[in-house]
């Protein structure tokens, strides 16, 4: 099959759409990294930058939706092309939500920075490394059409979930005797929760990448098969 459409304007539109999603993924990746760096380094300026940079991600989501809509109206894509448009729009939505979690982490960081009570945050880093790997794998699966990788992300996410539960439970256990640090512990619980959600949303991107390559919807497949 030729990779080019007879109507080359469609190739251009589809290519631009994918480029925008890739740009959005790069900015989102940068945002979550900066968010966690701001937490680990207690860097108020970096936290503020994450909050500011989220605007560009929000705007890209709107832009990608508009471009997808334009392609649907102008070119009536079918089969792989149709799945590519739908997947681009869904991926953009998931990226926007992931960037929102980066903002959540940055906001918690700001509060922790402004508090008078110092708190240990280093133990959050392994959780983030796990989530970041799932995110990177999801984006790789989307970019390269690697359906197997997209399908297997839920396995890594299970490990992340288990690690999150451990961290969350440990933090909750410290709450009772935390005294003046109770508020910061609550912030860290919510940071851990955001990291865990980043993993979930990255899994969504992996599932959509599988749909793009294989035309099969694997969301909630385990539950559906059991039912």
């Amino acid at each position: 099959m030729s990779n080019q459409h007879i109507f080359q304007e469609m190739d251009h539109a589809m290519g631009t759409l994918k480029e925008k999603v890739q740009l959005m993924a790069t900015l989102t990746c940068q945002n979550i990294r900066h968010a966690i760096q701001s937490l680990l380094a207690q860097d108020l300026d970096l936290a503020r930058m994450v909050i500011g940079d989220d605007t560009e991600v929000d705007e890209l989501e709107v832009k990608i939706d508009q471009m997808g809509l334009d392609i649907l109206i102008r070119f009536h894509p079918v089969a792989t092309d149709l799945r590519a448009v739908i997947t681009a729009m869904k991926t953009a939505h998931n990226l926007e939500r992931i960037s929102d979690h980066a903002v959540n982490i940055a906001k918690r960081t700001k509060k922790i920075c402004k508090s008078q009570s110092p708190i240990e945050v280093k133990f959050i880093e392994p959780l983030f490394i796990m989530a970041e790997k799932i995110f990177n794998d999801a984006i790789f699966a989307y970019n390269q059409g690697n359906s197997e990788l997209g399908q297997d992300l839920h396995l890594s996410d299970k490990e992340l979930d288990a690690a999150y539960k451990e961290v969350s439970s440990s933090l909750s256990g410290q709450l009772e005797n935390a005294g003046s640090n109770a508020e910061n512990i609550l912030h860290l619980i919510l940071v851990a929760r955001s990291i865990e959600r980043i993993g979930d949303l990255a899994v969504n991107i992996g599932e959509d990448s599988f749909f793009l390559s294989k035309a099969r919807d694997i969301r909630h497949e385990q539950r559906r098969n059991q039912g």
Partner: protein
Amino acid sequence: MVNSSTEASVSRDTAVQIQGVNFSYGSKQVLHDVTMDIPTKQVTAFIGPSGCGKSTLIRCINRINDRIPNARITSGSIRVHDIDIHRPDINMNELRRRVGMVFQKYNPFAKSIYENVVYGLRIAGVSKRSELDEAAEKALTSAALWNEVKDRLNSSAFGLSGGQQQRLCIARVIATEPDIVLMDEPCAALDPLATLKIEELIHELKQNYTIVIVTHNMSQATRCSDRTAFMYLGNLIEYGDTMQIFENPSNPQTEAYISGRFG
């Protein structure tokens, strides 16, 4: 179609069985070993580039190709409701009554609207006025044309718009109560609104008739049909549920064609 009842084991789900059909215009073979079952009371669309054989194939189903010198099925068979349409004792008038056809260019006769609709019935020997009136109203109603023409049934058919003339041709076909309606690019000469009316009509008609439509309009195939067959160079490349064909075709040639990457 035939006088005997020896072939009474009619498959209820299959209207047309096409088995290993090869077809040639003289020495030029244009269909190659085409095999497919067309289900009853569903819409089956034939798609493919010009010259791929889809119109030839649809015209084999009511043997209208027989009128072309040297055009013939060289091997294979076509059965309509389990009856071989090439049996020597086949009644061609009855075959074409049961397998009606609508063409790309609407072709009403130079007669009144009423006479166009009852034309087939008169040929079949029906002459009782009340019977013809009833059939005309029923066919025009089924073709979604009755309300537009009931007050001018005796006016010339040529006074109707293009879309109305095409619906009149459909009414003329269904007045004879066929089992199968073949449509060869029925909307090719119509504007978008007239096209949508025909498509809505196709959707209604499939409650009672098996419909086979040849179309170059991919959107029309997705809107109208339950099954889609993609043909290329006289071969049936892929045949399946329309949603499957347009969401996830099995054959790369099908994908290339429907997504505009052909050639």
